[in-house]
């Protein structure tokens, strides 16, 4: 995954914060000043994941018109999932999401313009009782701001399971 322009917008931050049930005014009120000294609209800790919106090739978003999408329509599926890696700084695209880690180097603020590059990390296998053979793969995404400064490093681990996970 490579993202040239991830526009960090106030309305996107507000929608993201609502979706995780967070009504902290630091995520929508530009006049809010926190006790910690933070001011202006900042992004919640996991917001970088929504960079998927700015990845032109993100495969977990239907293409215009929904053609070739693997969700249900007339039939229960349009096609088989492609299972390609990358996307959103997470491993979710490689099956299920096993781990996610963020390192914060600078505050992420509304108005920032990020770019992101993702590199594959380690890969390993494990046997599990609940889902058979597990294939893990790691991806590391670096988010830089408009000045070229590193803002967030995101490491995602995806897991491909042999069968659906028993719950």
């Amino acid at each position: 995954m490579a993202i040239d322009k991830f526009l960090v917008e106030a309305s996107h931050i507000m929608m993201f914060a609502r979706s995780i049930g967070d009504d902290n005014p630091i995520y929508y009120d530009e006049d809010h000043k926190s006790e910690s000294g933070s001011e202006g609209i900042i992004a919640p800790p996991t917001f970088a994941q929504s960079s998927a919106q700015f990845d032109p090739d993100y495969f977990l978003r239907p293409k215009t018109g929904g053609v070739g999408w693997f969700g249900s329509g007339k039939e229960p599926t349009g096609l088989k999932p492609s299972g390609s890696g990358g996307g959103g700084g997470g491993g979710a695209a490689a099956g299920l999401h096993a781990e996610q880690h963020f390192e914060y180097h600078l505050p992420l603020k509304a108005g920032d313009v990020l770019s992101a590059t993702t590199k594959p990390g380690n890969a390993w296998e494990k046997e599990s009782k609940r889902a058979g053979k597990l294939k893990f793969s790691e991806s590391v995404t670096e988010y830089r701001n408009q000045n070229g400064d590193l803002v967030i490093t995101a490491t995602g681990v995806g897991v491909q399971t042999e069968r659906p996970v028993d719950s």
Partner: protein
Amino acid sequence: MLKASEIKVGDTHSEVLVEDLKRTQIVQYAGASGDYNPLHTDEIFTTKIAGYPTVFAHGMLTMGMTGRMVTNYVGDGTLKKYGVRFTSQVWPGDTLTSVATVTELREEDGESLVDLEIVTTNQDGVAVITGSATAKIAS
């Protein structure tokens, strides 16, 4: 922002993240994050093709809600690190509770930091997320 003098190893902060998680909230998260994997929002695909009993929450939705508990405790814009493992799935109807426990207070590169251990559990006491976080604190 937390103050070093006001916290100690073993202190905890706990919040109920969600009661009776609704499918609509999962749809909201799909829209905001851009992750439209049908496993989270498409009941027919998920039951008939993927073989799960119903749709389930994005791991990142649970990590996001858990992050809300963490930032409510440590303050806005103070996190240095936040990482989790997704240990069990989260289903519609679940009620989640999250706890942060102070594991260490330390200094690094002239900054005062707190390390936290994080666990989010469902209504049956099953851990759905385990992880850790590090935040800046006032010395």
